[in-house]
């Protein structure tokens, strides 16, 4: 009886009056909770792990949060000493700093009063650990590898390629949307045709073209082949078709050149669609893998993705650097996600539900 009332109350809150909570509702929430853990958990684990020290990463089983042993400065000692919680022979437990270890005996001092020395069996002491972020995982790769170089390469490719894509795609879309001309049908078909040709099946010949153009091992070899996207032409063309034709006619009356109409009138009005294409292009370029892998063979032109892949072969024992670099690679994507999140929820929501 009580459960009945509870469930109908819950049901009222969620589904409006009079609809009891169905078992499928409960199953749905369980499924979604599981989904959150499975989808976000691994990324969260990556971020947490990236802040662990190298020795903490080797621990098994791993701790959830990044812990590090506390180190203290003791007067009279040249170096920082690791802090332990030691059980003394008289049964008391004190926090002591370890000066050195000889065999099974550790020589320890009280950090507050260095004149007090203790000898403790090593199995009678436990390291004092606090949550500490190993930020050196992030700062050291900057010096040890050409990490900034890879970051720069990725940013350069992403920004330049996106600008080129926006320019030539919008020009082509404008041509297809505004004019009537012989060959328009064929041009539209050609765009559809390119939509069906993935890079995976023209890998070798595109490599030949890029070599002929003298672009091997330059970032332009990554930028140029994918700059003209059929998706972009379509997206922009569809949007431009919705613009009123009168506007363009009026501008022609005022003696505006065709080029002026394109960039002064049509481009600003197409901004929403351009923004969508820009986001797509940023995602494609930042994440691109197979083509850069084939065409970039020198380390100094590696993009982040290629560098990460190369490192995971070389640095298998240095997960602390690898994880930190993976997190850095993930950051722009996370930013895009923050923007896209509203788009996913409202964009779809407004198509049918509301």
């Amino acid at each position, binding site marked *: 009886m009580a459960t009945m009332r509870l469930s109908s109350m819950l049901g009222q809150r969620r589904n409006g009056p009079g609809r009891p909570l169905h078992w499928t509702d409960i199953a749905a929430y369980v499924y979604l909770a599981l989904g959150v853990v499975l989808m976000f958990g691994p990324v969260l684990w990556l971020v947490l792990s990236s802040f662990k020290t190298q020795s903490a990463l080797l621990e098994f089983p791993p701790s959830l949060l990044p812990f590090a042993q506390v180190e203290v400065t003791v007067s009279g000692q040249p170096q920082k000493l690791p802090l332990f919680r030691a059980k003394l022979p008289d049964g008391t437990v004190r926090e002591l700093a370890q000066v050195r270890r000889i065999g099974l005996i550790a020589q320890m001092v009280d950090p507050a009063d260095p004149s007090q020395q203790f000898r403790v069996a090593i199995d009678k002491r436990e390291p004092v650990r606090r949550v500490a972020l190993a930020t050196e995982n992030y700062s050291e790769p900057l010096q040890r590898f050409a990490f900034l170089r890879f970051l720069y390469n990725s940013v350069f490719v992403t920004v330049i390629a996106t600008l080129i894509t926006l320019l030539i795609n919008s020009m082509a879309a404008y041509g297809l949307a505004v004019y009537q001309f012989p060959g328009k049908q064929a041009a539209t078909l050609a765009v559809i045709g390119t939509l069906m040709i993935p890079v995976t099946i023209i890998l070798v010949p595109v490599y030949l073209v890029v070599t002929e153009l003298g672009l091997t091992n330059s970032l332009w070899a990554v930028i140029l082949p994918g700059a*003209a996207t059929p998706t972009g032409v379509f997206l922009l063309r569809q949007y431009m078709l919705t613009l009123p034709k009168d506007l363009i006619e009026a501008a022609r009356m005022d003696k505006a050149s065709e*080029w002026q109409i394109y960039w002064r009138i049509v481009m600003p009005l197409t901004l929403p669609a351009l923004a*969508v294409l820009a986001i797509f292009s940023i995602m494609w370029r930042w994440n691109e893998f197979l083509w850069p892998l084939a065409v970039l063979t020198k380390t100094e032109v590696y993009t982040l993705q290629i560098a990460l892949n190369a490192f*995971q072969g070389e640095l298998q024992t240095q997960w602390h650097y690898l994880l930190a670099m993976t997190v850095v690679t993930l950051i722009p994507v996370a930013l895009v996600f923050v923007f896209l999140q509203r788009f996913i929820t409202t964009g779809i929501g407004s198509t049918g539900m509301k």
Partner: protein
Amino acid sequence: MSGVSSTIRPERGMATGALARLGQVAVLPVGVALRLLDPPMRWMQRMIGARRMAYVFLLPNFVFFGLFVFLPIGINVVFSVTGGTALFPSQRPYVGGDQFAYLFDCGSYLDPSSCREDHFWRGVANTAKFVVFQVTAMVLLSLVTALVLNMKIRGRGFFRAVYFFPVLLSPVVVALIWKWILQRDGLLNAAITTLGGQKILFFVDPGWAMFWAVFVSVWAHMGFYTLILLAGLQAIPADLYEAAEMDATPRWRVLLRITLPLLWPNMIVVIVLALIKGAQTFDEVFVLTGGGPGTATLMVVQYIYETAFSSQVQNFGLAAAASVVLGVVLFVLTLLQFAAARRKEV
């Protein structure tokens, strides 16, 4: 003017507002460049007339298409019928169908080790296996997820975003995230030993390696297909559900009689798209397993990549021939997609 622009600017998601303003600042130098292009374009217009300016606008994009798509398709065919190790077609001797004959030289097509080019056939067999498991899991999971996300639940927007999130991650990042979890002393093995089990070396066992290749790929791309199905679910007229509710139809019956039949066209789109993408699987699996152990997770695209670029002898002809074979398979799948799309319209 303002009246016009207000009709053009209906809410198009996040595109308006702050982001658009940010974009405006970012493309400022482009704006300057576009202004500088005005005099030459004006001259051009005077020379050829306003109507033919269409060709000028189309030209840059189509030069790119020509150089990096149309021309390569032609060259690919040339590569596949010539031999040798030279990159430039003029230096390659014509060998006719030899490359294809070599690829297809098999004792039995069901046994890759009986083939002369056994790696190609292992790639084909692995890709086929991968596609069967991956597409099945993908379609079922994204269907369930879309159905759940379409229910009247709290925080729907948040949950949709959660499932979509991995779609944005790069394949390298996806693979490294899971490699870190699945490694010998990783999180999963910690969980297994805590529950009293033995550590499992996931990437040493062929079966496990394939399982995780499928799992990780589904994890990464499920959100995309869920989104397509969700859009399909929301296009189902609400009055159908209202009528069903009036008649007190049980939920499972609503699902079987209304939801699934009306969603079927979208399901076909999802299945074919997943097939096309699955046949081209490369990056996540390559970074996760490297194709191993042995050749247990070697895919066709990895075979093409390695034959052309990373083996001792760069065998462009053989790689191109394998590309042509893959291209034919993808073409058939694309025709299927168009057929499905047409059925959807009817």
